[in-house]
């Protein structure tokens, strides 16, 4: 397997793209404004410390790129922690038009600037490709009186003070807003939602001991607790049921009559004004990676879902998302 990929790469290295069905890949022209081929080390920034979601994605992608030889040039992962990503973003923003500085991103790239905590946001960067989708889950203690989202939302409509939501991110960021988004679609007054943020690892504990009522988090964080019978999932933010043992038991909000979803997307960006040839190069390489068996294994290991978008599709998707989130933040009085 590895050998065949390598051969394809070698054969295709003179071409613009290797093993890719993009239109341009058929013409082997390397002339004016044509092909881009990296000739030096590629820096991949994870805008957070070691061990988190961004870091894991960056490291796994760099590893599989290297091991499969999809990109032959060396790729180094650099952690730039701080400001919820803002420090790394301002760093990349300064690398104008460099084709050798990529970074991994997810919805905080919108939430953080929208909350006024970063000068630069997704529109300042060059989207290359989205790779993964993850979804939110709303979990309650196993002995909770609620069995589905509507039971909870009904109580929130009647007595909003009696329900507390906990999440690990700040108000106005992902855990909070995914809940607000679904709750609003169910008819709950979004300005009345009580949200507490627990960034020291106590969120799940607080749900288990009954201090708070519902935990808004990622699907991957709850599987084991469900398996052990400690918590139950009232609903997830995916459009359709997920695949896999336990995962397929989680009902979506949509099937409970709440017509809303939320995707925790994760993909890669480059600095502003990246050369279109380099963008084409990367989006094709990311597509090849996304379709590779090796990366499928990675997805399976972490429970990530495949969601490849090329640069153009990605930009469109991001702009739609951005507007929705902006409106919602303004509505609850958090936008800037």
């Amino acid at each position, binding site marked *: 397997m590895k050998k065949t990929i390598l051969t394809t790469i070698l054969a295709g290295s003179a071409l613009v793209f290797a093993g890719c069905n993009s239109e341009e890949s058929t013409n082997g022209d390397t002339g004016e404004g044509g092909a881009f081929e990296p000739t030096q080390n590629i820096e991949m920034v994870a805008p957070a410390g070691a061990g988190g979601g961004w870091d894991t994605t960056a490291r796994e992608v760099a590893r599989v790129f290297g091991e499969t030889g999809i990109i032959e040039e060396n790729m180094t992962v650099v952690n730039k922690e*701080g400001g919820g990503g803002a420090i790394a973003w301002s760093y990349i923003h300064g690398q104008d038009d460099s084709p050798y500085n990529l970074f991994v991103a997810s919805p905080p790239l919108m939430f953080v600037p929208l909350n006024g905590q970063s000068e630069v946001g997704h529109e300042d960067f060059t989207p290359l490709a989205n790779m993964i989708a993850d979804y939110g889950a709303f979990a309650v203690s196993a002995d909770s009186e609620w069995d589905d989202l509507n039971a909870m939302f009904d109580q929130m409509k009647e007595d909003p003070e009696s329900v507390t939501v906990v999440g690990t991110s700040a108000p106005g960021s992902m855990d909070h807003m995914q809940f607000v988004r679904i709750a609003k679609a169910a008819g709950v007054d979004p300005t009345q939602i009580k949200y507490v943020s627990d960034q020291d690892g106590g969120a799940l*504990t607080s749900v288990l001991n009954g201090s708070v009522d519902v935990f808004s988090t990622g699907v991957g964080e709850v599987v084991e607790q469900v398996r052990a019978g400690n918590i139950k999932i009232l609903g997830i933010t995916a459009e359709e049921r997920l695949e896999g043992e336990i995962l397929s038991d989680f009902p979506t909000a949509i099937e409970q009559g709440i017509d809303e979803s939320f995707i925790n997307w994760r993909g890669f960006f480059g600095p502003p004004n990246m050369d279109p040839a380099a963008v084409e190069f990367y989006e094709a390489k990311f597509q090849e990676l996304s379709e590779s068996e090796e990366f499928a294994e990675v997805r399976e*290991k972490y429970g990530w879902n495949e969601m490849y978008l090329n640069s153009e599709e990605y930009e469109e998707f991001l702009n739609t998302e951005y507007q929705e989130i902006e409106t919602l933040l303004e509505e609850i009085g958090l936008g800037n």
Partner: protein
Amino acid sequence: MNAFDGMITGFQVALSWEGILFVLIGVIVGTLIGMMPGLGPISAIAIMIPITYGMDPAPALVMMAGVYYGAVFGGSTSSILLNAPGISGTVATAFDGYPMAQQGKAGKALAIAAIASFFGGTVSVIMLMLLAPALSSVAISFGPPAYFALMLMGLTAISSLSEGSTIKAMISAVAGVMVVTIGIDPQTGTQRFTFGNVNLFDGFDFLIIALGLFAIAEVCMLVLNRKNRSLSDDQKLGSLKVSRADLKEMSGPMTRQSFVGFILGVLPGAGATIASFISYIFEKRISKNPEEFGKGSIKGLAAPESSNNAATSGAFVPLLSLGIPGSGTTAVMLGAFLVLGVQPGPLLMTDRPEIFWGIIASMYLGNIFLLVLNLPLIPYLAKILSIPRPLLISLVIMFSLIGVYSISFNVFDLYMLLVFGALGFAMRVFSFPAPPFILAFILGGMMEQAFRQSMTISNGSLAIFVNSPLPLSLILVAFLSLVIPGLLKWRSRRKLAKM
């Protein structure tokens, strides 16, 4: 499977040649990383994740656990010798360890730290083995109100961390609380005192404060006291021997604080740093000679050292038995588990007993290795102090800078280290104690968050702190610990007056 069968399974893993080899690698790497100010177990474990990729999970996890407790073990060295804490869990170690080293008892201090660490580590592994399943319910019983009460209890200790002026200690503590509010407020997402500077959004890393107030301030003092050359000239390693009397003196604190440390380690969010402070204060409170603390007391050194190591094993309780990471380091450990295809949680003990018990069994072995490795190294380590002073001072500055830079590779942090160094120096000159500052910095942030979480949950009613038994009893203990010493003093004074 009961604990006994489990441990047999565990030792089969730990005592296999692979088990022994990887425990050894883990604890050696951990000790070295702990000794370097600024390099912590988090980055070490994160770096190891890709290396262990494809390895058998049991030895890989045994190795990472070794790095974790090895780092806490090794972190005491630079605290004692240089007043430059290697990791946040060993700040309290410097309170009495560094004075001992200055008195020419560096070797003894290192030996006491090693013995106390070994003791705390071993006692807590035994508790981990016997109580892990039962204790998982303790770990989840703490909600925001109980955390607030726990932090409050810790803060009442400020008065006991002060030498001399209580007012100055209070001012120092208030300054610590003020500094911790800098950054984005987690409960509202509002920026507080950041002046729009992105480098301040996350607030200050603990290490910047600790190295600034302790290491850099100390360096300034060393430069100033040029005439007193004791540190480089007659500074001797001193006898390594820990006498029987010493052992007797440290046995009480070691035993008590191993339990305290373990329990605090079990609570998500508390961890080795808070455990070491609370243990230090605990021992000072109950000591008959509290005035010895801070001047090279054996008890004051043994207490935080046994406690921080015990807390490290304690942190494995929620991780292994609940799948809840209680700290940054255990969160990265959780990531490592997942990459290796092991899901820690309530089912780990039955699904993968060889991993659950293997890790626990390997900790016995790891603690023995740590003791055996560290004791013979002490004479060589303590020689650091005989390095000529100008060189030593430059080394401390260099290591502090490297340590701070490696937090997030941000030059801004280096300037902040100097700012806190200057602050620490000024505090020394005007005799404001630094420990209350650092304690308030650690506890204050968590206390504020817990308080405001509680207020949101209760819709603003303070009754939430007295309505359930756990927070209520913790608040009572905090209150009593403030009042009782005063009452005792008053009574003894009255007795004296009567006589």
